[in-house]
């Protein structure tokens, strides 16, 4: 027991050495850290921010929004507010930015875009001094809808800098005039799309599992030469560009494609089957594309399982089925969960293949996100949808992690 403690000098030396190692380790990961910061953390944070922070309208008509925030919503806004609106709308008209405002408001109140554009065009010619006086009349003369409270609610809502409305929209919810959350009356789009994506993700994961597990087992137990040849067949699609593979499938599946033509020629069907541009084609092609990602982790785990475990179970008296269920299968769980997670997560976020072969029926949540970013220019909604997807995957990962409990799977 004597002298088992360190002297202060020795402690300092040990600490210094540890610090040195830590610095070394840190400097080694630093480039990756920087890369992650720019390519991952920054974009994700922007995405999360954009889904709740939306200052566009507030920047376009700041004074009107300030006044609207004090408006109680019982009657029409007072003249002062209307004048402010008229003045700011005229300014926007002169700067040719009225269209942008119209687009923003239109998201909250369908049809308001033309109202704003018409008004802006008429106000452009009128002098500021006159507008200061009688702006409200000009506004209401230009379009009668300014006498309706609906437009003002829409503007007020659009003017909120921090808002949860995109999340509500993404979940098919909305706030009514009293500020209560209710499900949207008109359309029920995103939840259905989420559910469809989920359902198809389950199907594709299940298919890759059914196809991949036996194949991975065979690969892991086959002699090296056979396994190498087979592995090339597994990896070949993996090395080919996704676009090439998807196009190949289009050639196979389309109405006059290889499959339909052969079936017609063999007289098995009278009319071409609708194989492309539906859920079926999305599932088939996605299964093909994601299959290697199921096989690889399974193979890695199976390869590392010593055959002596199966032999031991046999010598202890277990029949083959029991050996598989109680010994072999539990030992592959880590690879299985890795494969399932990979396929599932990749499928949920997959964009290009459903876009190419999915038609309208085979579209996934990722395609609608892309639509909102590229076509409808609604980045906030796209961000909200993306953030929900991210949250969903994190929850899923956590659940899976809990279920498979990798701690128990430490190999000897």
């Amino acid at each position: 027991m004597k002298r088992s403690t360190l002297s202060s000098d020795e402690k300092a030396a040990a600490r210094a050495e540890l610090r040195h190692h830590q610095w070394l380790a840190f400097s080694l990961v630093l480039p990756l850290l920087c890369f992650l910061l720019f390519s991952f953390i920054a974009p994700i944070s922007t995405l999360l921010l954009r889904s709740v922070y939306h200052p566009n309208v507030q920047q376009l008509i700041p004074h009107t929004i300030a006044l609207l925030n004090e408006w109680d919503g019982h009657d029409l806004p007072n003249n002062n507010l209307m004048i402010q609106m008229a003045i700011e709308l005229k300014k926007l008209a002169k700067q040719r930015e009225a269209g942008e405002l119209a687009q923003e408001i239109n998201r909250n109140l369908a049809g308001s875009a033309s109202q704003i554009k018409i008004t802006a065009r008429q106000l452009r010619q009128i002098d500021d001094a006159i507008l200061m006086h009688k702006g409200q009349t000009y506004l209401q003369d230009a379009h009668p809808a300014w006498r309706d409270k609906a437009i003002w609610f829409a503007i007020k809502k659009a003017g909120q800098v921090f808002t949860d409305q995109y999340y509500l929209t993404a979940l098919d919810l909305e706030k009514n005039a009293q500020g209560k959350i209710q499900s949207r009356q008109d359309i029920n789009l995103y939840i259905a799309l989420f559910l469809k994506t989920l359902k198809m993700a389950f199907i594709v994961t299940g298919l890759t599992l059914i196809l991949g597990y036996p194949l991975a087992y065979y690969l892991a137990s086959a002699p090296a030469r056979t396994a190498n040849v087979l592995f090339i067949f597994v990896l070949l699609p993996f090395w080919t560009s996704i676009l090439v593979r998807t196009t190949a499938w289009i050639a196979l599946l389309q109405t006059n494609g290889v499959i339909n033509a052969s079936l017609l020629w063999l007289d098995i069907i009278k009319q071409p089957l609708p194989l492309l541009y539906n859920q079926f084609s999305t599932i088939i092609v996605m299964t093909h594309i994601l299959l290697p990602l199921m096989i690889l982790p399974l193979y890695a785990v199976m390869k590392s399982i010593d055959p002596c475990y199966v032999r031991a179970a046999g010598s202890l008296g277990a029949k083959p089925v029991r050996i598989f269920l109680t010994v072999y299968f539990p030992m592959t769980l880590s690879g299985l969960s890795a494969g399932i997670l990979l396929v599932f997560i990749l499928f949920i976020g997959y964009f290009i293949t459903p876009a190419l072969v999915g038609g309208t029926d085979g579209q996934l949540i990722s395609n609608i996100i892309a639509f909102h970013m590229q076509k409808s220019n609604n980045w906030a909604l796209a961000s909200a949808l993306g953030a929900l997807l991210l949250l969903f995957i994190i929850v899923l990962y956590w659940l899976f992690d809990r279920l498979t409990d990798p701690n128990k799977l430490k190999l000897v």
Partner: protein
Amino acid sequence: MANENVFLQFNAIKKSYDHKQLVVKDFNLSVAAGEFVTLLGPSGSGKTSVLMLVAGFEGVTSGDILINGVSIKCLAPHQRNIGMVFQNYALFPHMTVSQNLAYPLKVRKWPKKRIQSQINTFLEMIELTAFAKRYPSQLSGGQKQRVALARALIFEPSLVLMDEPLGALDKKLREQMQFEITRLHKQLQFTVLYVTHDQEEALTMSDRIAVFSEGIVQQCAKPYILYEHPDNAFVADFIGENNMIKGICHHQHEQHADIGILQNERIHAQTTARLKPNQACVISIRPEKISIKRLIEATPESIHHSLTATFYIKHYVGGYIRYYFQLSDGSTIMVKSLNVHHPLQLEPQEKVQLIWSIDHAHAFIIDSTT
């Protein structure tokens, strides 16, 4: 061995993996119930293959294996009721110690209470009661090996196979486990077929040892017979240390051969082989059977069981000392002598007489080594 005593019998077993080469060539062996038989041989000699055939992991190419007179050739591994201990333990990593032990009992549908009491008995026996809830990854090598042993014994098989079970342990643990295995064997009276390449392990533990080389059993006998009366040069060389001196047979009379070595010297040796005159042979003499005499004390009458040699180096090993000598043709002879009160101090290049009892020289035909 009397025939009614035979428990496990191998009849002319042959095994080939690639349809070209035989890994096991004509293996015959009878094992009595409760016997501890070791298959000993260098790696690649086919001893593990024999074990795999008994366990049923590999099929027999030709021949038959009988247990109590019944062929087990066509039974699947799970129908054979044979316990097996693997070199790397093969404990199921996703099960605790007690779950591992319960596995063969659950398969056999024992009632829960009986399973629990059996597990407790065996945990006590291997002194790991406190570790019942641990996973294999939380155990040390020796502990894992004891659990593996208990798992192979817990369902009370009449035959237990052990495939180099102590190969992965360090020397001290290995000796401890050897003791443990022999103790359990005495206590539970099961039959053991044990595979190892460690001859010391084989000699200490076994009732009989079958020495394997190139798929053939060179000799199967009790440990002391293997050591004292090897059948051929391979066994003589493989078991323990030995001095092998090349010679030419002059004549043989019953079990005694007169052999010429070096230029002109004659040595008498025991032999079980039939040596023809002028046939090349080797004489083996154990290094500890040789004593060293200074030339002044030399006994000239022991002319046919002694040699003159030149000392050149000695190795101090602790319990004994190894002396190395050179014969006139340059070949080396090693002598082991116990490190007693006054170990012999020899001068470099000193000539000495090496002398041994006439029973301790054995002559073998040279060809049987290959």
